[in-house]
């Protein structure tokens, strides 16, 4: 199902589900084997720099990592005000005036007040990187965007509709049109990251529908922070029915030298372990129900495990490998 020819990957999802982590892992995965990718952030939080443990990213493309097999991951923190200055310079030759306006706070004001302006500036910047060529070749094999959360991503990408109100003609209008050409091309996909919990799954379902309603291209669902069940299906069923064999478990615990001499403590320990098994079974069952709600969306689903102890660089490379193995390329 995964397609090789996607050049713009937009990663969204409910807040806190792992958008930044997954986008970074994806940029690494796509750079593997000597390719070059650009990882972009748009919300001014310097999440990428933190993740790769590099100094805060400037408003220019910087190499942040080398992928397995010698590819390069570049990163860029897009800033709407800087993009606006570029824009004033490019279309109106207003570089100096632009800087003066910025000092007055006027640029910040303009990008805040005009609905859609900020989004056109941000999307315009990374769409330019998608299209950029040197010597007849694309500069980046793929661009990965750590995008705003599901609730805002449709509006963020659908700049045409937003800009309709503010600009009927002129460079902003043209910019919006060219952004829409990139976003609506068959080489763009919007991926949604989710956990197998009610709210993020619901947001994913609503998000896919909103993308669809707005004619935006949905890509894959990435189920993040998945726990692999430690018990098999029969054991899970027995754990929830409380029919696991207490005597056998007690004997095992004795054999393993885990339990003490006092019978009461032993019984309490066995009950506690069975309670934990029942909890685990319930959790697994709920995750399966949530997973079943994702299937009808008809999108490819890939999953990433919960990494104990949090995400460091090693874990990030590991997640990248897992994405590759599951065909998210």
């Amino acid at each position, binding site marked *: 199902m995964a397609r090789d020819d996607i050049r713009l990957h937009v990663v969204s999802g409910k*807040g*806190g589900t792992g958008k930044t982590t997954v986008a970074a892992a994806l940029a690494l995965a796509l750079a593997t084997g000597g390719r070059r990718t650009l990882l972009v952030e748009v919300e001014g939080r310097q999440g990428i720099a933190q993740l790769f443990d590099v100094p805060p990213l400037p408003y220019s493309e910087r190499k942040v990592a080398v992928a397995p097999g010698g590819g390069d991951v570049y990163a860029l923190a897009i800033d709407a005000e800087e993009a*606006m200055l570029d*824009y*004033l310079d490019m279309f*109106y030759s*207003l570089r100096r*005036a*632009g800087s*003066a*306006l910025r000092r*007055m*706070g*006027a640029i910040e*004001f303009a990008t805040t*007040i*005009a*609905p859609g*302006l900020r989004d056109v500036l941000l999307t315009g910047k990374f769409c330019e990187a998608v299209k950029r060529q040197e010597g007849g070749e694309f500069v980046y094999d793929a661009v990965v965007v750590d995008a705003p959360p599901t609730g*805002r991503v449709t*509006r963020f990408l659908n700049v045409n509709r937003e800009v309709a*109100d*503010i*600009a*009927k003609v*002129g460079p*902003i209008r043209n910019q919006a049109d060219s952004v829409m050409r990139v976003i609506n091309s068959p080489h763009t996909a919007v991926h949604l990251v989710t956990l197998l*919990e*009610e*709210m993020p799954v*619901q947001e994913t379902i609503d998000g896919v529908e909103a993308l669809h309603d707005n004619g935006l291209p949905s890509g894959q669902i990435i189920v993040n922070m998945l726990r692999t069940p*430690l*018990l098999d299906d029969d*054991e899970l069923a027995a754990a929830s029915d409380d029919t696991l064999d207490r005597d*056998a*478990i007690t*004997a*095992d*615990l004795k*054999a*393993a*030298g*885990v339990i003490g001499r006092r019978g009461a*403590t032993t019984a*309490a*320990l066995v*009950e*506690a*372990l*069975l*309670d*934990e*098994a*029942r*909890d*685990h079974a*319930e*959790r697994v069952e*709920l995750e399966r129900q949530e997973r079943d709600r994702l299937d009808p969306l008809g999108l490819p689903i890939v999953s990433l495990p919960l990494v*104990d102890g949090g995400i460091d660089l090693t874990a990030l490379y590991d997640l990248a490998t897992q994405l590759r193995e599951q065909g998210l390329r």
Partner: protein
Amino acid sequence: MTTPAKKSRGRATPAAPPARPATWDVDALIDNEATRIIVCCGSGGVGKTTTAAALGLRAAERGRRVCVMTIDPARRLAQSMGLTELDNEPRPVSGVQGDGELSAMMLDMKRTFDEMVEGHADADRAEQILSNPFYQALSSSFAGTQEYMAMEKLGRLRATADSEGTWDLIIVDTPPSRSALDFLDAPARMGSFLDGRFIRLLTAPARSAGKGLGRIVSTGFGMFTSVLTKVIGGQVLKDLQAFVGAFEALFGGFRERAEATYSLLQEEGTSFVVVAVPERDALREASYFVERLKADQMPLAGLVLNRVQATGAPMLSEEQALAGAERLEEAEEGELTSALLHLHAQRMATLSRQHHLADRFSGAHPGVAVAEVPAFAGDVHDLEGLRQVGRFLAGELSR
């Protein structure tokens, strides 16, 4: 939802116990007639909505007349509270036990904004504002609008409570946000932006220039409007001017309005509850929030530490469990038991990490009372689930 395995807190290591946080008497807070507003704050996804609803239900079942304002509750929780009518008004919740009453609502921010306009303008004027494109963008997608409207609605609920005696306790949930501070800061930020000098310049250049902003600014201002007009066209500016003019005439400015509602939060009778999960980011946000309340002299009732890992077998440490599992694996027997031991080891690892973080928070904020709610296997989606959360909050369970 089921209850967690056991109520025991199960400290993993017997090291010197750090100063335990003060236990929090949640019932004393909600039973106190003087408590009129409780605001549940915290970073994204930590359980603000669940806590607000659980406190509301418990207060009602202990006899208070409570209104809970939720924001984007999980769908099943909303249904269980009868929140199916999206009319932005509180509705009685059925299934509440005891003599008290519980009403609940889901905030509709656009609707709240519209009502705010309609409530202050004659029909023509209101229509003029509501159809203004700038207003439409502002009321549906501006950063900070949700927080502003949450406060606005709180003000309105409080006014209704005062004039009609409908409720004696209002519990408010706060919008999902990365930072717990957004609820306090976003309305003022938005207010000062909309009342800021650029808007003033745009809406009344002559007046502002005359007020001493000076020639330099007016020169800059000329450049500013011309650039702005070039980039986004003159229409946006016209809409903006029309909107701000109309709005000021009605409300005397955004900032003033935001300040008025903010002052409600500083009134006596308002208490804050900060919610966190035992993870680094969430506790850091909770810390910021606690310090901010202190700085602004606003009363913090306590910290809800939500989704804390629980175990019924604190006596079996992670290391012991893993060693046992290893022995079984070496002997190639007891596969199931070995899996159970691994499961337990995972729990103990999580639990000790969480307790370490929680202890660090309490070390930094020794005066903050803490109530712990365990992580349930399933989510919290019905009144019984909320009741159970309430029991933990009040310390009926778990201690």
